[in-house]
């Protein structure tokens, strides 16, 4: 079942601009992860933020998490052509244990125009 929903579905910006993508989810989570997928490839993990964290940075990436609003945002600063990809948020429901997979949203397709 889908939990995370990314917004917007598609985003086109000029190289050098910042790109912001949002993710909303429905149930309480342990953590939230962001992944990138280049066309026709597997997903690559970008960043994991736990439910007790509010902000996390990794290079040009900044992720925020607002558990009261059940939302997260991914900011890519100073975008480059190589950032063109689909970006997915994945949530991990805070119910039960075990090894069940993450629940992925449908993704934001980001295009960086040269």
């Amino acid at each position, binding site marked *: 079942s889908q939990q995370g929903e990314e917004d917007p579905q598609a985003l086109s910006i000029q190289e050098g601009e910042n790109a912001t993508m949002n993710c909303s989810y429905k149930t309480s989570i342990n953590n939230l992860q962001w992944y990138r997928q280049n066309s*026709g490839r597997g997903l690559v993990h970008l960043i*994991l933020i736990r439910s007790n964290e509010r902000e996390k940075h990794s290079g040009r990436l900044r992720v925020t998490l607002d558990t009261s609003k059940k939302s997260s945002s991914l900011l890519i600063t100073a975008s480059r052509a190589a950032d063109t990809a689909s970006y997915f948020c994945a949530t991990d429901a805070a119910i039960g244990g075990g090894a069940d*997979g993450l629940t992925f*949203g449908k993704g934001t397709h980001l295009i960086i125009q040269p």
Partner: protein
Amino acid sequence: DVKVTQSSRYLVKRTGEKVFLECVQDMDHENMFWYRQDPGLGLRLIYFSYDVKMKEKGDIPEGYSVSREKKERFSLILESASTNQTSMYLCASSLPPAGLAGGRETQYFGPGTRLLVL
């Protein structure tokens, strides 16, 4: 670096054929997963495994089975391929959750297998 490999990047099969998709990881991860990805539907979990010979159904297990005889290898089997199983198949592996209340850890994905069933 974690490496997850999948046996084929592209595969073309005929309706009714038995299809094996292989996935191997080299990081000694306990957990392994199979997803399919379709336009407009995102990634959906087919099966997962948290140990050798263990398997659990995901959201869409119908028409699929899995095998995990060795820790590093997780196979997805389409017993009788159908056209609605044309899709991108993604394998992933991860460490187990950290503790009873721990969250799911980072998943490492293979490059994907694009399967076309005619």
